């Protein structure tokens, strides 16, 4: 039954259906509504048994989850942006210890300048941490992915991060079909830890490993992610058979069969992209979209197959590696290993800048005419940047560029400082 609810609410209710035993909460926008809703359910007793712990930082949130998971409890938390970076050391540690924690990441930009709006910089910052990273395209998928995430995490002893576009999804109210408790209970068996703090069979967890075996330990983690490449589509298929919903999987192709230009992207922008592709198709352009749902593990083979017949691939990314270029693009390039395919990177939507259909149409049009630069920043105000560069050239103490650019673009009153 469809219910008109906020994405965060749908995620919270789905997480509750997964019967988490320890949930740690630290507020950071835009994930707060999720953790608030879970907290209320625990407080009211509708989610029980569950320990809801208000911690003093994200670093503590992940650390509490580590302790709980190592003691055999199903542990969950949610964060975003700075919060993810603040818990970074523990994020790596959870993966290194092989603890199947599930965390929602409400994707948000990273400061400075401080910015609460959506992009994917936070997820990219932890892409090498050993966590599985799944990107939701819609709120329905965001909710559904959490059930799959717990199953995947606990089967493989690998933590899973469900990446959900902040505000665009977390705060959007739309019709969502929530799962039944009976289905979740049958789909997701109780957590059986591979290692656990047990006084009846004491083990030491987390001790030092030297060069004698460190590489093997890391390679084993890699193999578990490769196992996930097998399990992610299987789990999505099982889920589809039970619910009729296509949530999860490795990649999601859209109208790529005969496409000459394929745009690759992750997250909620895929919806806008598909609409744009439909429109360009009507105008006679052979364009398609490839959504990447599983960013880690990276589905190289599925990507290679999907892009095999394209003459041009445009990777639309909500993040980039400063001083280098696209992040997802790099993975795509390695996966394709085809010199004859033109690869273009379009960086878009940084810090919440709206990615409009009009702008995407221009991208597709330019791509079709082979006019895209190797690295494009969508809707970038080059003149404003040039003027700031000139100011910096003219004056040593030119001040905070972030403020200067806002003034330059007339976003704040010119008179405010004068």
């Amino acid at each position: 039954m469809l219910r008109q609810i906020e994405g965060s609410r749908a995620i919270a209710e789905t997480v509750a259906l997964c019967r988490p035993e320890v949930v740690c909460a630290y507020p950071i926008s835009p994930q707060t509504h999720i953790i608030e809703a879970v907290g209320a359910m625990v407080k009211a007793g509708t989610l029980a048994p569950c320990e809801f712990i208000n911690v003093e930082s994200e670093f503590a949130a992940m650390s509490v989850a580590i302790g709980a998971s190592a003691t055999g409890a199903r542990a969950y938390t949610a964060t975003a942006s700075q919060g993810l970076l603040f818990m970074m050391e523990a994020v790596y540690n959870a993966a290194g210890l092989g603890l199947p924690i599930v965390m929602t990441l409400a994707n948000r930009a990273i400061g400075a300048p401080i910015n609460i709006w959506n992009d994917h910089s936070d997820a990219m910052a932890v892409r090498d941490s050993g966590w599985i990273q799944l990107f939701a395209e819609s709120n329905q998928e965001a909710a559904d992915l959490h059930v799959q995430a717990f199953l995947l995490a606990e089967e493989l002893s690998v933590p899973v991060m469900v990446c959900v576009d902040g505000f665009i999804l977390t705060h959007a109210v739309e019709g969502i079909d929530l799962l039944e408790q009976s289905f979740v209970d049958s789909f997701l068996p109780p957590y059986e830890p591979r290692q656990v703090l047990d006084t009846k069979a004491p083990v030491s967890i987390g001790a030092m490993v030297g060069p004698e075996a460190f590489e093997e330990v890391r390679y084993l983690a890699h193999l578990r992610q490769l196992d996930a490449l097998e399990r992610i589509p299987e789990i999505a298929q099982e889920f589809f058979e039970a619910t009729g919903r296509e949530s999860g999987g490795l990649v999601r192709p859209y109208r790529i069969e005969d496409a000459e230009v394929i745009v690759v992207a992750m997250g909620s922008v895929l919806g806008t992209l598909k609409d744009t592709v439909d429109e360009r198709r009507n105008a006679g352009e052979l364009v398609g979209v490839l959504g990447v749902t599983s960013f880690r593990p990276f589905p190289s083979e599925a990507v290679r197959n999907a892009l095999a017949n394209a003459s041009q691939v445009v990777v639309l990314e909500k993040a980039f590696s400063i001083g280098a270029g696209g992040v997802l693009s790099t993975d795509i390039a390695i996966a394709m290993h085809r010199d004859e395919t033109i690869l273009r990177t379009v960086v878009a939507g940084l810090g919440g800048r709206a990615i409009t259909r009009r702008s995407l149409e221009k991208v597709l049009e330019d791509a079709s005419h082979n006019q895209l630069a190797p690295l494009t920043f969508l809707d970038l105000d080059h003149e404003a940047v040039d003027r700031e560069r000139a100011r910096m050239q003219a004056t040593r103490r030119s001040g905070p560029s972030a403020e200067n650019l806002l003034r330059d673009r007339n976003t704040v009153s010119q008179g405010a400082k004068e």
Partner: protein
Amino acid sequence: MTSQRVHFYQIGSFAVGNRLLDQEERTVQAQADRANSIDSGHRACQGCGEALGARYALDAAMRATNGQIVAVNATGCLEVFSTPYPETSWRIPWLHSLFGNAPAVATGVAAALRVKGVKDVRVVAQAGDGGTVDIGFGCLSGMFERNDDVLFICYDNQGYMNTGVQRSAATPPAARTATTEAVGPEPGNTFGQGKDLPRIAMAHNIPYVATATVADLHDLERKVERAMEIRGARYLHILVPCPLGWGSASDETIHVARLAKESGLFPVFEAEGGVIRSVSRIRRPVPVEEYLSLQRRFAHLFGAHPRPDVIARIQSMADENIARYGLFAPESAEESV
């Protein structure tokens, strides 16, 4: 009761008395079937105060809980010398995560036990002074504030010894460390308050806070036993001399710890609900020189260019402790718990 044949090689030390007692009066640690949280064969330095403190504290916790304890360990000497895989000295479930998160990890362990309805297994978290007063401080304060059911033990050797003797916020003034070298007009660590963690812990109004040294191990054991009778956040701060970092002889660890207490520099007390309930009085008062001069980290205060002015400042710190905690108070005040 089983026992081991005793060699009286310790004659002249305070420890020998135990061996001369009747079997039933001997300490538990003298018995072969004692609790054994940390097995022998680990890599601690000779004379390590932390290894001694940890053994007594955790063995006491094991006895108090019938062996039902889980230990969480911060990164540091104790973690390193007790484990590197594939070896481990730990005979209890033991988890090391990071340097700064042991209190929060312990909170997670306690929460998992609670949610699973396990009431008899108790959680002990432990760290050195760096992992407690510096990098772990935020998590520790959070664990205290929530009154999570964790006994947190700080083994205070007054510096980052595992990384090569650097200053921490528990390093005493004037002490030489690798980051407060004994050079310049004010050699060694600067004077300041540092972080007095036991008092900060008391300010959280947690049910139990105590300090101890490895010079009085029965006092340490008693405090652990008392802590395990209580639910909620408990804090035990143990002074553990580090022969390497302090530049003291490895056979002087107990002596140095005793002088820290007897000089007044390290007050030994017990507090419940934020109120001091007992103090260990000074039995044989000593000037701070007697404590300082045994340690090379204070060598620059003595010798060819002595610094009586600096020693006087340290003495005044001891005098303040003596006044604050009533370390010279009459006998009756001690047994008021």
